[in-house]
């Protein structure tokens, strides 16, 4: 599943480590998410979207 996490993270000047700590996951999970190799749960997708001040629909391409 494609997403805009990397783009929006850069826009908010957040590193992968910062985002991982903010949403409560390991840094590797953010890496796999950005590469589109990991599909997050609805809860995690919502937390990431909220942290990056966007919506799930805008963040992920279904």
């Amino acid at each position, binding site marked *: 599943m494609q997403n805009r996490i990397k783009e929006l993270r850069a826009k908010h000047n957040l590193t992968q480590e910062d985002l991982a700590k903010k949403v409560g996951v390991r840094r590797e999970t953010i890496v*796999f998410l950005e590469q589109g190799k990991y599909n997050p749960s609805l809860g995690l997708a919502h937390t990431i979207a909220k942290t990056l001040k966007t919506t799930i629909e805008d963040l992920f391409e279904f």
Partner: protein
Amino acid sequence: MDKKRVLLIAILTLAFVAGILFWGIPLYFEGRYFEGVSLSAAALIVAFFGFKMLYAVLKNVNKGYPLEDERLMRIKTRAAAYAFYIGIYWILAIMWFEDVIVKYLPNFDISSAAGAAIMGQAVIFGLAYWILSSKGDVKN
């Protein structure tokens, strides 16, 4: 909380390694060299990789990351399922090839078979966890 869990895992790993060593070393002195050496070697391998992994986990916990997140939970569940299902075939293989095993290991008894089954499942779990976590996610 996470540090306490890491400590608990370290103690369990140590107890597991000590258990295998206490089992393997007397076998060696009983003259069952192959079983003694292979069990001791297995214990040392488990100790090496176990504490290497614990060090990496502790480093992450100290940096403020969670010990386990939803991705790792998902991977752990799938790895445990693989260990269970493949482990059944592993146990069946030990039963099917009993004659061949006994031919080469005359002292292979029920406790050795149980030990081999437990070790086999542990190895399958470790391998599955490592492969799945390097891929990133489990495919449904």
